[in-house]
């Protein structure tokens, strides 16, 4: 919704909905305040109002122009807080059971993705490593394990409305489920040094069938590599995919 930015995850609609709600509530107040402001400027310009009035602000008939909006704003605030927390809990505080898991590793200045391969389990011989390209299947719930090798990075997929900082020394788990196929930007939203401006990637969302065939093809290559050496070496060799 956000203008014409595609909406491609199960929660992007929730976040857009929250943005619309905030726009309506604060936008209403914004317009009302500005209209009042400019009307007062017009009405009480020196030409039309040569002598000012003595008003302290204690007059009840004037004070209610402050007190009533004050209460209404409190109500709007509560509505916004409830809506914001609901979206937050859905996106960040809940982890729906995963269909698949992917490891996302940030480092100066590239993203590395470890896909689980055909067996659907991470850290096995058939894992597929890529850099700067993340392959996911539409309609499947993914857990991502977010890590950093050096400084802070931030895993940002605008079409998912998803963002999470990566912190060295920690693994942060989050989730997403894509609703739309296509290829979109992955950005690093946290400044990470002189290459911050080139640190990006693409997310390729396929239908489950297309995705399975991509996995099949690359898992086979990973297996072949694993057959010739140990799994650790396969992992580092695969990283240059």
């Amino acid at each position: 919704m956000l203008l014409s930015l595609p909406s491609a995850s199960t929660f992007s609609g929730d976040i857009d909905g929250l943005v619309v709600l905030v726009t309506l509530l604060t936008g209403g107040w914004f317009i009302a305040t500005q209209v009042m402001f400019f009307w007062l400027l017009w009405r009480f310009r020196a030409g039309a109002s040569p002598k000012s009035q003595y008003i302290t602000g204690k007059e009840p008939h004037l004070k209610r122009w402050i007190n009533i909006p004050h209460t209404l704003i409190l109500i709007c605030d509560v509505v916004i807080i409830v809506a914001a927390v609901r979206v937050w809990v859905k996106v960040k505080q809940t982890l729906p059971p995963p269909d698949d898991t992917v490891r996302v590793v940030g480092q100066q200045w590239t993203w590395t993705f470890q896909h689980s391969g055909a067996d659907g389990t991470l850290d096995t011989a058939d894992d597929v490593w890529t850099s700067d390209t993340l392959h996911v299947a539409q309609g499947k719930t993914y857990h991502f394990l977010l890590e950093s090798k050096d400084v802070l990075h931030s895993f940002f997929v605008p079409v998912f409305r998803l963002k999470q900082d990566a912190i060295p020394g920690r693994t942060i788990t989050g989730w997403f489920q894509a609703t739309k196929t296509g290829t979109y930007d992955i950005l690093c939203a946290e400044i990470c040094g002189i290459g911050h401006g080139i640190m990006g990637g693409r997310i390729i969302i396929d239908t489950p069938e297309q995705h399975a065939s991509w996995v099949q093809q690359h898992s086979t290559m990973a297996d072949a590599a694993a057959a010739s050496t140990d799994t650790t070496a396969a992992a580092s060799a695969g990283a240059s995919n």
Partner: protein
Amino acid sequence: MSDHATAAPAHGAVHHGHAEPNWFLKYFWSTDHKIIAFQYMFTGMAMALVAGFMAYVFRMQIAFPGQAVPLFGFVSPNVYNALITNHGSIMVFWVAMPVLLAGFGNYLIPLMCGCDDMVFPRINRLSYQLFLLSAIVLLVSLFVPGGGFGGAWTAYPPLSAVPKYNLTPMGSTMWVLAVALEFVAFLLGGINFIVTAMNARAPGMRAFDVPLAVWMIVVASLLFMASVGPLIAGAVMLLFDQNLGTAFYNPARGGDPVLWQHLFWFFGHPEVYVVLLPAMGIVAEIMTVFARKKMFAYKTVIYTVIATGALSFFVWAHHQFVAGIDPRMSNVFTVTTVIISIPVAEMCFLYVATLYGGSIRFTTPMLWALAFMAEFLIGGVTGIYLGASGADIFFHDTYFVVAHFHYTFYPIAIIGTIAGVTFWFPKMFGRMMNETWGKIHFWGTIIPFNFIFIPMFILGMYGEHRRIYDYTNFPDLANPQLQALRITSTVALVVMLLFQFPFLFNFIYSMFKGPKAEKNPWKSNTLEWTADSPPPHGNFPEMPTVYRGPYEYATPGRDTDYWPQNEKA
């Protein structure tokens, strides 16, 4: 004169000798609060020119990536990062704070409270000297080997802490050092502001007779002093991590990079109000004078200021929603952040209500004060999007944030400052500024300002992330329509910067050649207007006594529509 004479020994011998002190002692070694105010203001304005030029360079790079920028040359990624980092640092720490808090604080507190100087004039002088040193350290840091620090004004470790990650070992150390020195300078200044406003008020001036500008500067100083301690500790730890091999922020050796974020934002959020409040105070003085109106619910304004200040200590983690803090913590900070809109909105409503029943004169200072209100409202409401945790998942670190905080900081640091400068110029320099040029400058600044930052809201909604020197590296963001918005914003910036030359000209010309100002050209009530224009050392020919509050305009039963605070009933 007798009061003045008895106050003299407190000032030290330098200023009260009969011989006129030489220019160095008068302008560079002075303990006179007005001279120190000018030192802060002129240093701040010079730094604003530096930061404005930086903005021009990096906006040109964004709009026309890879092309040589006129007057600068090619912008490499590390230079770009150093420019954005130091633009932000300078505008907050070396422009907004020195001009609004230290400049206006020093100038206005003794004059508005009706005393002859700050309570600790020599601490005041030391405060400016440390501040000047901090500014020099920062400027020099841009030219050391490796270049200036480029890890953003928030300086998150490990990037800021580890030379092999930031590649600016000297630049980043000097940046932290400069910031720490600047804090020491403002701690010294803050003590002075609070003690002077509390202890040195004119006889008869009770707490609720104090003009809002002074109230707000004092509350801002309290906020600053209460919040800066943790950040100074954090900055020392960062210096140790950079240079002594400690690991306060290094997770591999038991540290935690997120610790810095808590310390930084525990200070960083109150800091917004540290600079907002003086600007709001300035606007209150100007609006009441030119609407010829008593402040609407003066005491409630003060209560909303105190409530805002107190709440501002409990909102810091809204900068860290997606930073890897426990997600449950975000819910607490969403509540506090959204709730802070209540006192701030109330304050804005009271300001708007002050116009009701007024007789409004659209002088140049009034236009700036009114523009502050209209523009700051945009900054205020867009903050709600970011405080609402669910929406911030998307907006965090996008240009929506950049647009939002420029709609708060720009009204504060630029509009508020110019409002104050044009309003008190006759008092400061004893001459009037040119109104026509003032209005040309006003419209030439305000209109482009909106064309700079409204495109950024739109870009943010498309997910454009911050601190990127070339968006053609990202296929979705390389879209030509988005690039057209970036170019619009840059062109507007150039226009706005060019319109600052009429102001500089008007400022300098009027200082020497403007028509002479009388004592009270705006027919204002507050005490500074009872002193000569400009006030001599010692301020008042006769120390004033206060009989009423500062906003008695249009009091019924009087011939004149104003009633100075020191005029006997």
